[in-house]
């Protein structure tokens, strides 16, 4: 589904990604872990097409086609979803209106007719139930006045609405207490399907107790320095990121 080859990216001339290689197949969940400043969030932003970063080398194929030349909205319409670490507030724009615009833009891109209002409201209702989300959410403005936990839940709710092929969740666990973490993780697990894939970016192993990954990669100083199965996460938790650094130096 996604293949990243030797991807390099800079911000303001400083190189953050120094040659990333990663293969993600349908049905898989990949966890990317690493210390602060290792480039985890940069990777997520580059894949989503944020223009703060300049790609200086390598390529990314999404379902066999080059991804990097596409605008962020086209990537989204092609099925890439980014769960933001810091979801943005848009005052005055209701979640209903926002989601409806997004869904219809995506459907238009895929040559589908617009969703009727009745179908859309039904979809909202179903997904809210699935994600165990407060029904007042729809009438509130996008992320405005949401607590940290609500914002993260709202990201997963949007993911459920848009049904992406590839979801990249950028530190979805940060700032969540254990109950909120469980709700978010349950939501994510309900969305796992054989035909979609997820990249879960996290600093702590804790989230991976609830969202069990097929693969774990450790990112350090702009490179993936170690890959393994879920046991790697436990090992990391036990030994700390210094262990990787030391091992690398050897």
């Amino acid at each position, binding site marked *: 589904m996604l293949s990243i080859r030797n991807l390099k990216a800079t911000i303001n001339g400083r190189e953050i990604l120094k040659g990333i290689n990663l293969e993600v197949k349908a049905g898989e969940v990949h966890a990317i872990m690493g210390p602060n400043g290792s480039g985890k969030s940069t990777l997520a932003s580059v894949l989503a097409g944020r223009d703060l970063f300049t790609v200086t080398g390598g390529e990314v194929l999404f379902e066999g086609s080059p991804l990097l030349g596409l605008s962020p909205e086209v990537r989204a319409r092609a099925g890439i979803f980014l769960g933001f670490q810091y979801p943005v*507030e848009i*005052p005055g724009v209701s979640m209903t209106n926002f989601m409806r*615009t997004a869904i219809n*833009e995506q459907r238009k891109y895929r040559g589908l007719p617009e969703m009727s209002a009745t179908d859309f*409201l039904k979809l909202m209702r179903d997904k809210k139930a699935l994600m165990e989300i407060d029904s007042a959410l729809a009438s509130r403005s996008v992320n405005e006045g949401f607590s940290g936990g609500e914002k993260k839940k709202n990201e997963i709710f949007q993911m459920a609405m*848009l049904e992406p092929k590839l979801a990249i969740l950028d530190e979805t666990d940060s700032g969540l207490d254990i109950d909120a973490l469980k709700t978010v993780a349950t939501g994510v697990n309900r969305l796992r399907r054989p035909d979609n894939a997820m990249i879960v970016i996290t600093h702590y192993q804790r989230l991976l107790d609830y969202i069990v990954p097929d693969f774990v990669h450790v990112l350090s100083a702009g490179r993936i320095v170690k890959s393994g199965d879920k046991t790697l996460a436990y090992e990391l938790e036990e030994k700390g990121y210094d262990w990787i650094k030391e091992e690398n130096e050897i």
Partner: protein
Amino acid sequence: MQKYKNQRQYHRIIYKNQSLYYVYGLILPAGIAISGASILELQINLHSNCYLCFLFRRILNNFAALVISVFHVIMNGDQDPILKQVTQGEYKYGFVTDLDNDALPKGLNEDIVRRISAKKEEPEWLLEIRLKAYRYWLTMKKPEWAHLKIPPIDYQDIIYYSAPKSNKPAGSFEDVDPELLKTFDRLGIPLDEQKHLSGFAVDAVMDSISVKTTFKESLGELGIIFSSFSDAVREHPDLIKKYMGSVVPYRDNFYAALNSAVFSDGSFVYIPKGVRCPMELSTYFRINAANTGQFERTLIVAEEGAYVSYLEGCTAPMRDENQLHAAIVEIIAHTDAEVKYSTVQNWYPGDKNGKGGIYNFVTKRGICLGDRSKISWTQVETGSAVTWKYPSCILRGESSVGEFYSVAVTNNYQQADTGTKMIHIGKNTRSTIVSKGISAGKGQNSYRGLVRVTKNADNARNYSQCDSLLLGDQCGAHTFPYIEVDNESAVVEHEATTSKIGEDQIFYCNQRGIDTETAIGLIVNGYAREVLNKLPMEFAVEAQKLLQISLEGSVG
């Protein structure tokens, strides 16, 4: 990362919209349990000041709002074609109707003033007012204090009276020139009452005269007078004599004096004691003829306990030369009366290089004469090359309330200097000002507002909020608040913010599949929502579309 206010909660105040009950009451399938008309009927019988009735009304309204909002979402299932159309369209009202005009020659002098009066077969006293105003105007200079750059206007190069020839005054629907009807149809304003499902009564004004006023008879049964100004002068001279110029005297300012001398037509509304006007009254202004100025007058009188919601819309053809529009609106609210006045102003703004467009110099003022009376101005200003406009409230009655909600957009070379005046005279008077300026391109947008609390206005309260949103780096936003307080018990609050649309907001929308142009439309409409919510539903939809058109091409 710049953000505008995030603490405030936005509530949809659907239940305040009386028009809704009519709009949906007529469209809703009979099967839906609630009929809009019956609610309204109940409302008429409810006491306006009794707490129990108030509660009961709230419950009814909330229920109705629930049904309506669900239905509204369903109804708007095809909103996106509108968006598409909008993102492609330019000024779509720019066509010209080919009509024979009965026009006076260009220029302004006493003879022209007399001839306008004669054309309208006016009584002597009105001609006297015109002449006094004209003579006074000659002694005046145009105001220079506004933050506007206006090239000199040659007042001798303007036609002051032009009327479509075939229109017979005060005729029935069959008498109206089909060409005229077509024009208003194209503008989306059918003048055929049969086609009017939505509970709007319309007075259509083309150039200098009123073409047709709908629902005149059915409103008349309630004692409501809704007619063209000229008809009112003939049929209700006492009322006109009593109220005209009582809020905006001809000496008020340069443009008011000009208007008082040469005004042609406009609307007159009179709501008798205790009557709630059951439909939205609206006037649609259209400038059609070239080289012609439009000078209309609107006068609204609400007697004790009366209620009316009034709407005004305006468009003009695209022309290379600038055209002048100088209007006067006067509102009088007696004890316990409430008047809501909404404007969607979409005069031709000129082209992308700043050529052409309407100069819009308007004096709008209302007086809350009686205790507990209320006047509310809502305006969406997207058109005109230059806007100079300050809808104001004089709060004379005790506990009277003034409100001003405004969205003003300037794109390309448009300039707007707009705001309000709230003059607190009575005790316990309250006023609210919410102004949202949006500047794009090379547009210049100024808020200018005065809050004055006079000596005897004990416990006066004002809250002002002025937000400016900038799109791009060549536009300007300016805020000129004036506060004059002569009473120690007054509480006057002023909040102002200036913001840009955040790149992070746009990226967030992009990441959900929404392109940048649509994202800006969403964000701007969200920003203006507090004001748009104050408009009757049909106008709100129209205004949203307008905002999107006006900001087209302003990205990047």
